[in-house]
């Protein structure tokens, strides 16, 4: 008990005081948009036209990046970059700019060195599919060692609010460094999925007064690397899908 006594002591304070300070009872918009919360609240301009436009612009930038990520996934160099995450000497580099941060995975001068000869991406299974979503397999004929699986409602991806999860599965030894994406660095965190190192992204914003959720995950081992993107799906469900991917 003696060690970290203050944690136990603070843990004993009245629960009503704890609930009072819960994020949901503060301004939720400030929590969802931490980069802008301080300035805008201080100046009382949360609902100004300019701030709404900035929020919308941020959403558009995010959506564009999600799309760009999907396109980048088709590039062999991109996949190789992701693999570099799992080589311990290559840490991701975070650079902050006006709208967020840029994350570069891996060292551009290094390449993955492991071998996954004999591993068939078709052996990888997606064991958990949330209710309401169905599997659509998108086969890339040019790259037999990769698969793209999309879980979607069947109504297509119409806008930012259409739920879907896209899963890219590839052989780790074909990935090269050079991949980059932008988001808020405080929302990117290291984690573990099925015992493998993983990077997770969880962004919650608003557009047209509605909540927009985006999740991403990159994880794998020396054989297989998995990259996932989810839109309008809870992080809990997203992680369940990730944990259900086995090989």
């Amino acid at each position, binding site marked *: 008990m*003696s060690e*970290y006594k203050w944690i*136990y002591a603070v*843990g004993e*304070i*009245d629960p*009503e005081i704890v609930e009072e300070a819960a994020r949901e009872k503060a301004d939720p918009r*400030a929590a969802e948009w931490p980069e802008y919360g301080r300035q805008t609240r201080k100046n009382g301009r949360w609902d100004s036209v300019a701030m709404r436009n900035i929020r919308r612009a941020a959403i558009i930038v995010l959506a564009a990046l999600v799309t760009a990520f999907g396109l980048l996934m088709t590039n062999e160099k991109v996949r190789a970059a992701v693999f570099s995450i799992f080589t311990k000497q290559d840490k991701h580099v975070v650079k902050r700019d006006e709208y967020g941060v840029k994350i570069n995975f891996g060292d551009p001068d290094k390449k993955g060195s492991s071998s996954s000869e004999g591993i068939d991406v078709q052996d990888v299974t997606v064991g958990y599919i949330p209710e309401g979503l169905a599997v659509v397999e998108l086969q890339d004929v040019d790259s037999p060692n990769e698969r793209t699986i999309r879980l979607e409602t069947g109504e297509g991806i119409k806008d930012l609010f259409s739920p879907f999860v896209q899963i890219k599965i590839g052989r780790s030894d074909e990935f090269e460094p050079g991949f980059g994406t932008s988001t808020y660095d405080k929302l990117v965190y290291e984690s573990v999925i099925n015992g493998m190192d993983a990077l997770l992204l969880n962004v919650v914003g608003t557009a047209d007064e509605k909540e927009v959720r985006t999740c991403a995950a990159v994880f794998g081992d020396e054989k297989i690397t998995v990259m996932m993107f989810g839109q309008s799906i809870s992080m809990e469900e997203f992680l369940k899908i990730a944990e259900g991917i086995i090989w």
Partner: protein
Amino acid sequence: MDDSQIVDLYLSRDESAISRTASKYGSRLRDVANRILNDFTAVEECENDTYLTAWNRIPPSEPRTYLFAFLGKIIRCLATDEVRRRSSSRRSAVICELTKEMEDCIPDGTNSVEDAVDARELGKLITTFLGSCSEDQRKVFVRRYWYFDTIQEIGDLYGFSNSKVKMILSRLRKELSAFLMKEGYQV
């Protein structure tokens, strides 16, 4: 489903209470535990243990109006117990930082059984102290030392500059230290 309905599920021994709780508060509980442990696997274990503990404690407890605080208290204790079991090199940087901040108010004790009681008494004193503070001060203190938020996150949340948050916390720690001494607690 509101908290009271979830508590009713616990009281009627309906196992869906746990999934409802996980669905509503799982991510927030994991966030609190992860601030202490910085280890997702251990956080998941703590989360599961939290639900089991809640299952065993409701009844007799009926936290209808403070379910998150109730669960949060459990997971904070479990995560802190876990971090104490680890070697010092694996301790979360956030916890080390916060411990350093708080050592002037609440120094670590002497590893005795009495410390458990002492922590409860201290908790009551801190509650009394916070009751005398302004709402902003109270929230900043709780966000920092209960939720383990960073200075930047607190500033973002309440629209304060980082220096203002630091100033509030610094003054609160000094006032808390003086308050505890006045109440006969040896700081």
